[in-house]
């Protein structure tokens, strides 16, 4: 039985029920931005995010019905039509599992592209074409862990992106190169420079 005050996600886990998550991270504040974890709570007008909604006694909750699966599938389709998920195997698995078809929006659907990978410091690189805006890096850099406040946002809506103060290179920001952001990034948008260089070099390396 779920402990009082547990989220639907926690309760489901302890009951052996899987609910997919994308933005959620066990050690970070849940902001419930991706909405992949939504479930149907009978009596609620909208679906509710399992990673933050607290379970209540006698609640009737469907974690995998048609309505829930449609929402998850459409979110995944829209995401994959926007962002480069080639280094996000967990998202690839979800796309397959939900039968998501990212091509349905056409080959001219706008993608979020940010130009060349940002290589501006010795420790890590930033490849924002792969960024899904899960907010984890911003959170670890701010109140969730580091209180460094090097990372923030540009734009809004579809044009939101992760940014530094006036887009300055990392060494010119408050960044202390703790690497926490790289550690929590789920898609390869942030990765160690050595790993990046190795991957870059691989195709032309000695056979």
């Amino acid at each position, binding site marked *: 039985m779920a402990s009082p005050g547990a989220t639907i996600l926690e309760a489901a886990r302890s009951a052996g029920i899987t609910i997919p998550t994308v933005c959620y991270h066990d050690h970070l504040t849940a902001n419930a931005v991706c909405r992949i974890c939504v479930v149907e709570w009978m009596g609620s007008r909208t679906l509710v995010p399992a990673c933050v909604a607290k379970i209540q006694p006698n609640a009737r909750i469907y974690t995998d019905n048609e309505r829930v699966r449609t929402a998850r599938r459409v979110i995944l389709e829209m995401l994959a039509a926007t962002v480069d998920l080639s280094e996000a195997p967990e998202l690839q698995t979800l796309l397959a599992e939900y039968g998501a078809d990212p091509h349905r929006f056409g080959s001219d659907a706008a*993608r979020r592209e940010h130009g060349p990978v940002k290589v501006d410091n010795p420790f890590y690189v930033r490849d924002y074409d792969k960024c899904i805006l899960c907010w984890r890096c911003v959170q670890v850099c701010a109140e969730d862990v580091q209180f460094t406040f090097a990372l*923030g946002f540009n734009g809004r809506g579809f044009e939101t992106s992760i940014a530094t103060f006036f*887009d300055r290179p990392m060494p010119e920001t408050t960044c202390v190169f703790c690497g926490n952001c790289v550690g929590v990034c789920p898609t390869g948008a942030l990765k160690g420079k050595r790993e990046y260089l190795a991957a870059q070099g691989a195709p032309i390396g000695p056979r």
Partner: protein
Amino acid sequence: MTTSSSVSPTAAHLHLSPRQATAVHAILRRYRGKGSAYLLPCLHDVQAITGWLDADLAAQIAESLDIPAVQVHNVIEFYALFYDHPVGRTIVRVCDDLACYLAGSEAIVRACAAHLGLDPEHGGTTADGAFTLEIHPCLGRCEQAPFLMIGDEAHGFVRPEQVPALLGGEA
């Protein structure tokens, strides 16, 4: 395949006259130590003097309010009324939303763009820096459609042929 336009602040710098610099200084002093809840008022007050906000000003505002610099950045980049790039001395906001469209806003937008020599799709800033033209969502004056604002001045029931006179000779 289309790409979303990357929205980034410019690396350009503001050049403040001595009078502007003094005025900004006074504002920053007034907001010193007031914290996050005074960020929007402070940005409004500073921008009223400077026209737009560059990295230097943003950093000074952060320092004065005693908040992280990236928070100032985040806020400037979110709100449509804060500018991270140079804009005209007068901003012309032409409503092209529903009620104004029904009253002929397309012709008003075209007339403004033609008079100022700007693109009727996206607006922009005149080469002499006199005007910035914005095609704007509903400005809350639908009962006076079509509607536009020149700076803080409201103009309702506008007809295309009035536009040159409204925008005057500066352009």
